[in-house]
């Protein structure tokens, strides 16, 4: 049971690469915090600094108010689960799980009992005398968990523990880790590059990019109110459609114009001191694929966009339409976010829509999609920060 506190933590490698910059993060006792970001964003480095496997260049790492910067991993009393499990190949499952107890000079009887209890919790009892080489991927993963759990550590650190499992097992283990973490109530930091994993597991999610913390919030807040363009594009799958646009205001109305389209903005954007500071302001307009619905007679009053269907993915539960829209797409210099988009065609930018599986859209058609949402996301084109009517009007 512990609280982790990072203050101004940075990591600069001898070759000058700045992997982590000035991260402030508090992880409450018993919380499961997910660190998410594209590969190379410094999330693993941050985790390894908490574990003591990596020196902290600047800043302070505290565990329960105790500054641990200078402590070795063994003094910090934290357990780590590695991406490749890192099971000791020459030891049986029993010895793998019990190794930390042996090093910690736990009395033999107690150690044996704790190993048995942990094995029972993870359904490993029958496998205790096998060696890792004779286990399946899922079983190895559970042994790696067991090795962490048996210690009753101050905190769990998990470095992409599920990324080596196949999709079905991953979903299963995801649920199991959540269940275990809840029942044990151990403070946990979980690193992943998979935003779905982040959203489903974390009570709070910390988004990291280029070593900088972007936003730390609950999954729903991250989804609803991304602080900046990167978070907006990173959270959500398929990711948000983003277009270059600008705000056009009159004394009574305001709209976000992008390409040939526009979206009426809430009243707040029109009120204010009348200085018209936002008139013509360059923005990036964000529209979630799930806001788009086929335009019918019932929703004809909603703002709409006209798109041409390029590709249709019928997923059973939904239908993802890859379309192009007459607008200029906004570029984000993170390659992973480009995944899943149809490459930019001659006219217009890609636009993804998650439609009802009953939709009858056909490839090559030009259709109107209604934006079935009271607002769109607006980001400053320069700073990429989210614009909020209450503070940025």
């Amino acid at each position, binding site marked *: 049971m512990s609280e982790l506190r990072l203050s101004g933590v940075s990591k600069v490698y001898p070759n000058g690469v700045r992997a982590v910059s000035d991260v402030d993060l508090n992880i409450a006792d018993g919380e499961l915090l997910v660190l998410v970001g594209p590969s190379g964003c410094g999330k693993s480095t941050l985790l390894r600094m908490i574990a003591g496997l990596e020196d902290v260049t600047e800043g302070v790492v505290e565990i329960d108010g105790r500054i641990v910067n200078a402590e070795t*991993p063994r003094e910090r009393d934290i*357990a780590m689960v590695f991406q490749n499990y*890192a099971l000791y190949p020459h030891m049986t499952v029993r010895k793998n799980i019990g190794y*930390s107890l042996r*090093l910690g000079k736990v009395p033999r009887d107690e150690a044996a009992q704790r190993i048995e209890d942990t094995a029972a919790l993870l359904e490993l009892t029958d496998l205790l005398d096998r060696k890792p080489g004779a286990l399946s991927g899922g079983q190895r993963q559970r042994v790696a968990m067991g*090795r962490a759990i048996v210690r009753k550590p101050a905190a769990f650190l998990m470095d992409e523990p599920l990324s080596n499992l196949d999709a079905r097992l991953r979903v299963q283990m995801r649920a199991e880790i959540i269940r275990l973490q809840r029942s044990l109530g151990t403070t946990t930091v979980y690193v992943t590059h998979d935003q779905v994993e982040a959203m489903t597991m974390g009570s709070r999610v910390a988004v990291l990019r280029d070593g900088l913390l972007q936003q730390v919030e609950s999954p729903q807040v991250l989804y609803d109110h991304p602080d900046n363009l990167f978070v907006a594009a990173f959270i959500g799958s398929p990711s948000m459609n983003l277009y270059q646009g600008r705000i056009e205001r009159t004394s009574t109305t305001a709209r976000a114009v992008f390409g040939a389209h526009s979206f009426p903005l809430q009243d707040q954007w029109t009120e204010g001191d009348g200085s018209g500071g936002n008139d013509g302001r360059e923005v990036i307009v964000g529209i979630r694929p799930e806001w788009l619905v086929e335009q019918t007679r019932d929703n004809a009053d909603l703002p709409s966009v006209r798109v041409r269907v390029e590709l249709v993915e019928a997923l059973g539960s939904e239908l993802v339409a890859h379309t192009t829209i007459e607008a200029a797409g906004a570029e984000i210099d993170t390659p992973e976010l480009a995944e899943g988009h149809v490459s930019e065609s001659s006219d217009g930018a890609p636009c993804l829509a998650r439609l009802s599986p009953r939709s009858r859209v056909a490839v090559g058609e030009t259709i109107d999609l209604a934006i079935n949402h009271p607002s769109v996301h607006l980001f400053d084109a320069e700073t990429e920060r989210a614009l909020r009517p209450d503070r940025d009007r």
Partner: protein
Amino acid sequence: MVFLAPATVIYSVFMVYPLLDSLRRSFFDDDGNFAGLDNYNTLFGNPTFADRFWDALGHNFQFFAFHMVLQNPIGLLLAVLLTVQSVRGLNIYRTIVFLPTTLSVVIVGFIWRLILSPIWGVTETVGIDTPLLGESRTVLPTLSLISVWQWVGIPMIFFYAVLIAIPKDLIEASRVDGAGSWQVFRDITFPLILPMLGIISILTYIGNFNAFDLIYQVKGVVAGPDFASDIMGTFFYRTFFGASGTTGSPAMGATVASVMFLIILAGVLLYMFGWQRRVTTYEL
């Protein structure tokens, strides 16, 4: 089959046939008459042969012991040091340590004879007034150390190859589990390099019992003083070709060679059945 044939033929003609023929000759006298076990009786019964044989065998085991106690542990230590990431110029150290291995034994022997020369070598400057290569008491340990110096690069490279193959994750996992440097080595690294230790040991054994060139270069075939540096290789050479006035006997030489073959075979069998079956190599 077809692809294996050339190698099989060459191997048979140049390795298997001479070996079998040498075994065969140990049962014949120098004139080609079948002699049964007479040669072996002479080797073990006639004091002129037997005393030299047991001496040489004993020396050979001492020679081997020096390599096992010094060469291989030092090789391992150097390999471990080479894996320490924080040291600069590791490649240079690796090359330097490996360099003597690439030198000809003739040169190594010559260099060390100069270094250890009692007249103007370095021994006097460091306060050793014994002629290390000239006294019965010191000659074998000295030659063993020269050989260790020359060959330590081999176990080092072998151990190094295994060490760098151990995933960093494993080491880090054990550190997080609470292991200090010594415990990491004892519990993780060492068990994982154990198979290589066996391979290096058997190679050392084979190499040491076939050793000849260094002693021959430094001390000649009589392996002086007073046969104090005589090992199986030099004993065989004298028996077969003769030396300092005595005539050689191909039959007796073949007999010595056969016994050497059996000694090495025994070691290899011990390794295969006593060690290799018990020590598992793990997929990392």
